[in-house]
């Protein structure tokens, strides 16, 4: 305490220590709040532009694949996850499908969205619902093995919970099956 730098140093690092302890308490008490599982409902409205695509490389090689763009509607309620430690949610829709003959699986994300936490807790029950009507998927589903006709695909809705202090965790909210069309359209 004998010089100005010593006093400045002691005050600054004491404040840092209290902020560390308060952040750990913040993360610890968040478990006493609700950390339930949100409800979600997904309906696939249409599978558009389901074609067999072909492309030529500049050096002469040819590649071809199946491609489809989906349209869906999604309803979700995130109020069971909102607590004071939550910063934002990352919602994404994943398509999982298994090749029957060859026995391997593939995953493809077709839509994602960032949901920020609304600032005022008194409005959480009003603004926690997400409704997407006739939403076109951002990324198409491609299959280089051309096995998509008449295949059974699984639409999974995942959520990534990002807190202010603590670990980031992922949860699968729901699983919805869909039968692809028999022919290209």
């Amino acid at each position, binding site marked *: 305490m004998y010089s*100005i730098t010593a006093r400045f140093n002691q005050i600054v690092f004491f404040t840092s220590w209290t902020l560390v302890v*308060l952040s750990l308490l913040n993360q610890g008490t968040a478990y006493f709040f609700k950390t339930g599982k949100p409800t979600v409902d997904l309906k696939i409205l249409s599978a558009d532009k389901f074609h067999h695509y072909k492309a030529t490389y500049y050096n002469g090689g040819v590649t071809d694949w199946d491609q489809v763009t989906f349209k869906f509607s999604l309803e979700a309620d995130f109020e069971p996850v909102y607590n004071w430690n939550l910063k934002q949610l990352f919602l994404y829709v994943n398509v999982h499908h298994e090749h029957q003959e060859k026995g391997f699986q593939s995953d493809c994300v077709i839509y994602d969205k960032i949901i920020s936490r609304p600032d005022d807790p008194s409005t959480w029950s009003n603004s926690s619902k997400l409704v997407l009507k006739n939403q076109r998927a951002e990324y198409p589903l491609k299959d280089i093995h051309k096995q998509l006709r008449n295949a059974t695909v699984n639409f999974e809705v995942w959520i990534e919970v990002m807190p202010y202090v603590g670990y980031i965790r992922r949860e699968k909210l729901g699983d919805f099956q869909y039968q692809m069309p028999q022919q290209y359209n």
Partner: protein
Amino acid sequence: MAEGQSDTFWKSLYIYFNEMDFESQLFVKRIYKIVILTVAIISFIIAFFLERFSVCVYSTIGASVLCILVLAPAWPMWKKNQPNWQQANWQKQK
């Protein structure tokens, strides 16, 4: 510092804000911890019921900035209890 040497303006300003009484140093050492801890605990409880952690962080940082501005430099209020220095004796010791 020998007689006849003069300080520049910035160096003498630094020396002015650097030197603080021993009594004030004890006081400052006790009080900054009490102030920051009190503000941190009360704002944490308030933020818990408002469900916004940013209230707690901003008020703790604000209290620490206030402490730095008031307690770290040696303002005149911290120079009131000077110890009794002896007279300077510039003759050489035999």
